[in-house]
């Protein structure tokens, strides 16, 4: 089966085709980062306007890359939520009506399930059950994944998402918007031990996170040491170290608590080099395994939506013609795949 995947939940337009026998046939991503930069954050209306301009041309581009005609598609998957309502509606409207027009099934995919299942597209694919750390600009969650569609939230951020805290701290350091990746690069040149940032919520039980305090701590550190040479790179390094150690600590706790052997990491922050290195070291120490999607599939993308949709469509699930998006949608409310569906 050839499944077209469409992602439009935030500020990236992603399209891909996944073949259930041969894997990913082609994918394209159009990022709106430059569009939103001068506004200092994602402007939902502008995001929606860009999605409706870019989605159809991207579909053509991906079909060409995949050497497929529209008539060779067997199903269409699109992100139904969570995300920005207006942005989601572009994907649901176009995806659902294209499926209707072609007479093939359509399915609305949970964006975070897409991220969570993305590492399963890799050659070295994690076996269920596993613990998943989902970290992006909008999400910070530790999930327990028993099987496709069977998830339990173990912990999540009580305030800022981790990617958000990277971006906010970067902005504070004058790195522009979105500066999370620039902060990580700057951190590589800094001394992570010049300042000691707190490790929020690690001194008590539980798997929840809190990152808004780190941004405040960074602000105060900067204010109190303005004239120190290399202050910004040292703050960046200390901030990143605190975030990474906090995430690693909670992941280890989650593995101990569940007794599971495998951890998967997904979402934009999953591309953070320091986080990846630390998780690999900890996995070796504790005799567990850690899995990541390829770097290209850490950010929002159409491939993960095509893949998650392919699993559900192959199992016989499909949606009706309702185009409604679900801006807020818990992963715990998803349906499990029918047993023995492969």
């Amino acid at each position, binding site marked *: 089966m050839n499944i077209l995947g469409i992602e439009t939940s935030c500020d990236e337009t992603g399209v891909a085709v996944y073949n259930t026998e041969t894997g990913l046939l082609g994918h394209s991503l159009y990022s709106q980062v430059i569009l939103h930069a001068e506004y200092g954050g994602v*402007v939902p*209306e502008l995001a929606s306007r860009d999605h409706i301009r870019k989605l159809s041309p991207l579909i053509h581009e991906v079909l060409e890359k995949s050497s497929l005609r529209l008539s060779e598609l067997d199903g269409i998957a699109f992100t139904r939520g969570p995300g920005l309502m207006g942005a989601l509606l*572009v994907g649901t409207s176009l*995806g*659902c009506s294209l499926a209707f027009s072609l007479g093939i099934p359509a399915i609305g995919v949970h964006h975070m399930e897409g991220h969570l299942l993305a590492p399963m597209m890799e050659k070295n694919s994690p076996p269920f059950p596993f613990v998943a750390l989902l970290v992006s600009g909008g999400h910070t969650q530790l999930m327990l994944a028993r099987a496709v569609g069977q998830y339990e939230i173990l912990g999540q951020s009580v305030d800022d998402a981790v990617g958000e805290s990277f971006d906010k701290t970067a902005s504070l350091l004058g790195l522009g918007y979105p500066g999370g990746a620039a902060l990580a690069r700057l951190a590589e040149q800094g001394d992570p031990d010049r300042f000691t940032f707190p490790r929020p919520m690690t001194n008590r039980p539980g798997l929840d996170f809190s990152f808004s305090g780190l941004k405040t701590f960074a602000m105060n550190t900067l204010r109190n040491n303005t004239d120190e040479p290399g202050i910004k790179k040292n703050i960046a390094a200390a901030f990143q170290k605190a975030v990474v150690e906090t995430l690693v600590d909670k992941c280890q706790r989650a593995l101990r608590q569940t007794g599971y052997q495998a951890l998967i990491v997904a979402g934009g922050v999953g591309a953070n080099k320091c986080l990846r290195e630390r998780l690999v070291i900890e996995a070796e120490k504790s005799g567990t395994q850690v899995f990541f999607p390829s770097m290209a599939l850490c950010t929002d993308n159409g491939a993960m939506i095509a893949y998650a949709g392919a699993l559900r469509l192959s199992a016989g699930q499909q949606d009706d013609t309702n185009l409604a998006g679900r801006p807020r949608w818990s992963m715990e409310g998803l349906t499990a795949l029918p047993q023995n569906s492969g």
Partner: protein
Amino acid sequence: MSEKPHPVKILALDTTQEYCSVALSVDDALIWREELAPRSHTELILPQVQAVLAEAELRLNQLDALAFGRGPGSFTGLRIAAGVVQGLALGADLPVAPVSSLAAMAQGFYRENSTATHINAAFDARIGEVYWGNYALIEGIMQSMGDEAVSAPDDLLLPATGGWYAIGSGWAAYPQMQHRLAARLVKTIPETAPLARDIIPLADKIFRAQQAVSAEQALPVYLRQKVARTIRERTADRS
């Protein structure tokens, strides 16, 4: 007398305002579905498409063209219409006629009031503005006299001559327009809205003039371009 033009099969849809509507022209008949359902467009639109096709016993790829209300109107509504029409057009390989939702509303008002040949159509654009355009009947079709605009109510203008019908939610939102232009207005009827069946004659004209576009060019026309302030603009305001 010229020969009657060959009938064109067009499926039109509109979700720009509070009505969700679909219409299908087939030979000389017109089949339509319309529902006043401000928050249910996403649920209703494809079943409506399905229903008119079923009634006409046609498949999408047996049609000549698609059409949609391209705006102005609710931003989200415009994109639902554009998204659906793009998806249908891609899948069935059909051209698309984008139609002004203001012109469609004027066409609908003329359908019900055959003396209304000069119409100002206006939607409430919120934040103290109005979307508007002037339309005159030429060969049975409401045609735009000048550009459509978004402006303050005080900047809504009528052409120099004639008596005009004033229709649409803009006239209810800003009664001062009626006071200012009273001498030029034949009648003011704010309770009017665009419907897919009135898109059909306008789309038919676009299709015959070979001005229909491909799926990816079936885009909304918002009129309002400025929807957020940049960091620089916000900083300038504070200082």
